[in-house]
C-alpha cells in the first residue's frame, strides 16, 4: 500500500489496522472467487464444456435412433464424412457462401464507411441510414427479401416484366438460391460492419491526409496508401468476425431456402440440424459438429493471436 496516495484524514493509529484488513481480504479472496466465478463456471460447465466433450464422445460411436451410443467406431464417422461427396459438396458450398459474404460485406462496408467519413453537410443522416440494417433480425430480413425474390409477385419479377427480361428463378435455381442467401446475409451484415469501419477511419490522424494533400496525392491514392493500411487491424477484425458468423449461419438458410434446392445451400450447421433432428443420425451429426468446431476454433484463434500482438505493440 502506498502512503503517498492515501487520503489525508487517515490517522497514524489506523495504519496497522488497515494493513491487517487488506491482508485478510486477500486471504478471503478464494471464497470471494468461488462466489463471483461460481455461477458462470457452473453454467459454462453444463452448457458448454460437457456438451463439447459429449459431442466428441458420440462422434466416435454409432448411435441408434434414440441417440444412444451402440458400437465404438473410432474415427470411422469422420472418414465416412470426408469420403462422402455429399458432405464435401456441403463443405464446398459453405466455403463459397462464407467467402462471398465476407468479401462483399467488408468491401461494400469499406466503400460506405469511406464515403460517410467525408466532411460534408448532412453526412450524419447518411451515417444513420447506412447503419440501419443493424436493427434487422433474421426473420425480418428473410421476409423482406423473400418478397423481393418471389418469382410470381416479387419485386425483381415485377421489374423484369416491366423491362421485358426473363424472370430469374431466385429460389428454385441452385446457383441463384445461393446468391439469394448471400445477398440477404450481406445486406444484414452491412450496418454493423459499416459502423466499425467508420469508427476506424475516423480515428486515422488527419495530419496524414494533410501531408498527402500537400504532396498532391489524389483521393484514390490517399485511400489505398493511408486509409486502408491504417485501418488494416480493424479490417482484419471485421473479416474474421464475418467469416466466423458465416460458418455458423442457420436462420437465413432455414427461412429462405431450407437447404435446397437439391442441397445447394445445405451448409454445415443446417446439415447438423437435419442429420440429428430429422434423420436421427446423431453420430454423424456429432462428427459434423466437431468438424465445424475445429474450423471455427481455428479462425477464432487466429483472431486472438492477432489481437494479442496488437495489444503488445
Amino acid at each position, binding site marked *: 500500500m502506498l502512503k503517498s496516495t492515501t487520503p489525508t484524514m487517515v490517522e497514524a493509529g489506523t495504519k496497522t489496522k488497515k494493513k491487517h484488513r487488506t491482508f485478510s481480504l486477500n486471504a478471503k479472496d*478464494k471464497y470471494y472467487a468461488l462466489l463471483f466465478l461460481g455461477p458462470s463456471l457452473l453454467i459454462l460447465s453444463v452448457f458448454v464444456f460437457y456438451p463439447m466433450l459429449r459431442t466428441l464422445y458420440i462422434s466416435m460411436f454409432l448411435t441408434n435412433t434414440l441417440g444412444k451410443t451402440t458400437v465404438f467406431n473410432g474415427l470411422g464417422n469422420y472418414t465416412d464424412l470426408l469420403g462422402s461427396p455429399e458432405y464435401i459438396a456441403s463443405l464446398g458450398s459453405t466455403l463459397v457462401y462464407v467467402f462471398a459474404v465476407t468479401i462483399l460485406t467488408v468491401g461494400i462496408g469499406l466503400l460506405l464507411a469511406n464515403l460517410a467519413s467525408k466532411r460534408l453537410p448532412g453526412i450524419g443522416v447518411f451515417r444513420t441510414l447506412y447503419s440501419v440494417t443493424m436493427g434487422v433480425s433474421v426473420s425480418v430480413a428473410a421476409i423482406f427479401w423473400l418478397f423481393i425474390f418471389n418469382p410470381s409477385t416479387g419485386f425483381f419479377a415485377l421489374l423484369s416484366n416491366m423491362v421485358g427480361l426473363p424472370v430469374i428463378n431466385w429460389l428454385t435455381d441452385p446457383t441463384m438460391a445461393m446468391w439469394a442467401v448471400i445477398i440477404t446475409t450481406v445486406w444484414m451484415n452491412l450496418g454493423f460492419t459499416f459502423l466499425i469501419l467508420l469508427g476506424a477511419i475516423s480515428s486515422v490522424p488527419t495530419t496524414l491526409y494533410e501531408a498527402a494533400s500537400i504532396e498532391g496525392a489524389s483521393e484514390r491514392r490517399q485511400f489505398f496508401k493511408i486509409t486502408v493500411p491504417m485501418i488494416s487491424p480493424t479490417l482484419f477484425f471485421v473479416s474474421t468476425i464475418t467469416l466466423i458468423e458465416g460458418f455458423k449461419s442457420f436462420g437465413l438458410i432455414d427461412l429462405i431456402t431450407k437447404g435446397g434446392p437439391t442441397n445447394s445451400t445445405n451448409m454445415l450447421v443446417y446439415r447438423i440440424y437435419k442429420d440429428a433432428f430429422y434423420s436421427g443420425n446423431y453420430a454423424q451429426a456429432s462428427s459434423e459438429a466437431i468438424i465445424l468446431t475445429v474450423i471455427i476454433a481455428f479462425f477464432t484463434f487466429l483472431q486472438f493471436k492477432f489481437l494479442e500482438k496488437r495489444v503488445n505493440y
Partner: protein
Amino acid sequence: MISTNKPSRLNKIVSYTLLLLLAFVILAPFFIGIWTSFLPTMEIAKGNFLSTDLSFNNYVAAFTKTPILRYLANSLVVSTLTMAAQLVFCSMSAYAFVFLKFKYRNAIFILFLITMMLPFEAEIIPNFTTVKNLGMLDHYSVLLIPFLTSAFGTFMLRQSFMQTPNELKEAADIEGLNHFQFYWNIVLPYNKVSLITLGAYSFLGAWNQYLWPMLTTFSNNSRLIQNGLRQLQSEETFNDWGMIQASAAIIVIPTILVLFIGQHYFKSGMNEGAVK
C-alpha cells in the same frame, strides 16, 4: 476520407450522388416491405404494386388474427432477462479475474478463452438431451438458463475492468470496502459504458436467437418472435403477403427506433471493443 482541403464543387456533386444512390439501395428492402404492408394482398398477388388502395388493414389483421403480440412479449421478457443476467454474471466473473487472487486463476481464464472458440451450434445435440431430461422444454427457462452468462461478455468486461485506475483500488482498501462494496459502488459505475455495450449486445443476441428456440419451444406460450414470424409465414396456405409484411414492419420499426436512440452509446462502445 477526411480531407481538410475543401472538396471541389464537382467532387461534392459526385459524393452526394453516390451517397444518395447507396442509401437508396440499402433502404430499398425496407421501403418495398413497408409499402406492401399497406396494400391489400389481392393487389400484391396481381402484381399491382403501385395500387393506391392503402390501409392499415394488414396491421389490424396481424394484431387480431395472429399471436404476434404474444411472440413479441415472449421475446421482450426473454431478451431483457438474458441481458440482466449476463450483466450480473459476466461482470462478477470479470471482477474475479481482475481483482481477486486465487489458485488456478490463469488456468480458469484460459478455459473461458477456449469457450469463446466453441460454437453453441455444435453443441445442440447434448444440450437438447440435457434440457429435455431437466424437463425444461417449451418453458422460458430453456431459453434463459443456457445463456445466463457468456465467456465473450466476461472477456470484454475483463478488458475494461483492467483499465480501472489502481488508485481507486487503493482508496477502497483504505476505506475498508469489501469486495462486494468495491464491485458494486466503484467498479460497476466506473465501467458504465462497457456495461451498456454488453447489455445492448446481449439483448440483441437473445432477440436474434433462432436455432435454439426453434428446437426447444413449440407452443405460442414460449415461442419467440423470430420463430413466430416463420410460423406465420409457413402456416398461411396462400401467402398473405400484406399481413406478413405488416408483421415484419411491426417488429422492425421499434428495433430501429431503439437503435437510433441508443446509437451514440453503441457506436463508442463497439469501437472500443474492436480496438482492444
